[in-house]
């Protein structure tokens, strides 16, 4: 049962799952940390990213790399319209945002049902090749996915820790009023954070839709995972979301490979509940 082949396969699977979860959870936690909105529409943006990739790559036949970046960019740009129309009303109102954005999620999902119909579609894989290392079989498109996610995450990290805008964002996340008195234009920072968060969600959605299947309802699972991952890492903590995504991705992969998906869900949810009771602020969060 615990042969190196299966372990290696589970490891690889965990790697790509972690990449998706971290991308989605980072955006979720960024929005929560800075604007105090619980973005229940996050999964629907991931779904839109999946459809954008489907049309750009699967239908129009653009090369893969420009297609996935362009689809995420397009969804994030379109999302800015929603930022002006919807999100702006809910900044710094945690509770109203939950319900209002749940409404947004319903509206987006069912608009997509009308536009794209409910049937599942599949996006063709980026690469067909297979790498063989001993007994280990590695599909190359999985490797590409992990590489893209790693590059985007690295860029995100560099942006947050090396640029002035990243610094401003972290300052706004710590204390909005003091950040404003220091001359940070929080309105712009909000827009920027929103754009970055939706970009990552749409990218992850494209990858997710490619590995699993594309349908208007595919956003529910990523949203749920983002929620749990962010709880695990600590609400609003960016390193926490990254760590939580990695733990959750690998945990899910290994547990479901060896014990089935039911056990995997029970164990991961149970562990997060235990953590919440003993250490409610999460692994890397800060107690209030």
């Amino acid at each position, binding site marked *: 049962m615990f042969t190196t082949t299966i372990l290696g396969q589970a490891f690889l699977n965990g790697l790509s799952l972690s990449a998706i979860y971290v991308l989605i959870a980072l955006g979720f936690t960024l929005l929560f940390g800075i604007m105090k909105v619980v973005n229940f529409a996050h999964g629907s943006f991931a779904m839109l990213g999946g459809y954008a990739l489907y049309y750009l790559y699967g239908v129009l036949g653009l090369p893969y790399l420009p297609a996935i970046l362009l689809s995420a960019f397009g969804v994030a740009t379109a999302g800015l319209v929603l930022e002006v129309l*919807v999100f702006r009303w809910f900044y710094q109102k945690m*509770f109203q945002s939950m319900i*209002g954005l749940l*409404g947004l999620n*319903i509206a987006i999902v069912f608009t997509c*049902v009308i536009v794209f119909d409910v049937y599942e579609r599949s996006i063709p894989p980026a690469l067909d090749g297979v790498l063989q290392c001993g007994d280990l079989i590695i599909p190359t498109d999985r490797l590409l996915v992990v590489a893209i996610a790693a590059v985007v995450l690295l860029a995100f990290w560099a942006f947050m820790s090396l640029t002035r805008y990243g610094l401003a964002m972290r300052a706004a996340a710590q204390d909005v009023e003091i950040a404003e008195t220091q001359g940070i234009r929080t309105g712009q920072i909000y827009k920027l954070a929103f754009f970055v968060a939706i970009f990552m969600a749409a990218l992850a959605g494209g990858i997710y839709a490619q590995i699993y299947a594309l349908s208007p309802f595919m956003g529910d699972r990523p949203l749920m995972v983002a929620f749990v991952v962010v709880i695990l890492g600590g609400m609003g903590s960016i390193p926490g979301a990254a760590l939580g995504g990695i733990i959750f991705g690998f945990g899910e992969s290994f547990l479901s490979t060896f014990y089935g998906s039911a056990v995997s869900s*029970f164990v991961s949810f149970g562990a*997060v509940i235990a953590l919440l009771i003993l250490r409610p602020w999460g692994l890397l969060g800060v107690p209030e």
Partner: protein
Amino acid sequence: MSAFDTAIVDERQSFAVSRNVLWPGVALILAFLVGWPLFAPNPFLFTIATFIVLNAIGATSLHLIIRTGHISLGHAAFMGVGAYCCVLSVTRFGLPPVLGLVIGMAGPALLALIIGPVVLRLMGKYFVLVTFLLGEIIRMVFVEWTSVTGGSNGISGLPPLHPSLASPIATYYVCLAASVACVALCARILSSEVGRTIDSIREAEKVAECSGVPVIRLKVSIFVLACGLVGLQGGLLAFFLHYIDPTSFSMVESLNLVVMNVVGGMYSLGGPLIGTVFIVALPELLRGYVELQRVFFGIILIVVMAALPGGMVEIFGRARRLLSTQMDRTAR
């Protein structure tokens, strides 16, 4: 940080309805609820009305928990525990359906008594998160424990509550009676000494504790009571539908109950009642194009939350303030 906006708390002052308006109003609504089936005996309306009065039980019982300052995202899971306890005791052990309803209330109440003392120590958003996860775990138990719960297929073939109560109109009246009793119980609790204590816990838990309020004990009691009541909704729902499955008790349903409270207004009992009618009836009224109706529903949720952060009860407060300023002006 508390999960509540201070702005909402300020709005609350204007909701107090004077007694001479309240009682005739309640009597009028009750007369309408009892009387309308005589004039419009339409099976479709009966179904909607039964859903509304049933959901009113869940929404008001959740309202009790919300008044203590905790928002539960797992309330429908407790409803599910009630429904399954009720159904299993009737189909497996052959108990009379009425006794089944009692067991359906006792089951979730017992569960709440076990986990309440642990989870009610968590504040604000952490309680929201932990109840969300608990609800998901309970739902997974319904799905995975196939030998008892029937898995995702659920359990069907339930007998009616009583052979003479099988018709839709009788079901409606039974559910209405249960619902009115629950709402009355909640109203009585909230307007009593205990209700003041509950409000004091939400506004300033430490101060309440220093004044001698047994905070945890009271919160657990309210939690147990609320979960027992929602178990009653679960049991009645099972008898109404003759069928239960895990999707009726998922996180979406829990969220729906929260939405009813928030859309209606979280700080007075009228809120969840208005919210229930709004959330249950609106999708039915927009019927026709099912997808388009969901889109409108989503947009309405956004607009209501953006325009009325304190919920729809706020309309009355605003209207009254507007009216009084107008009257001031004319008096001058």
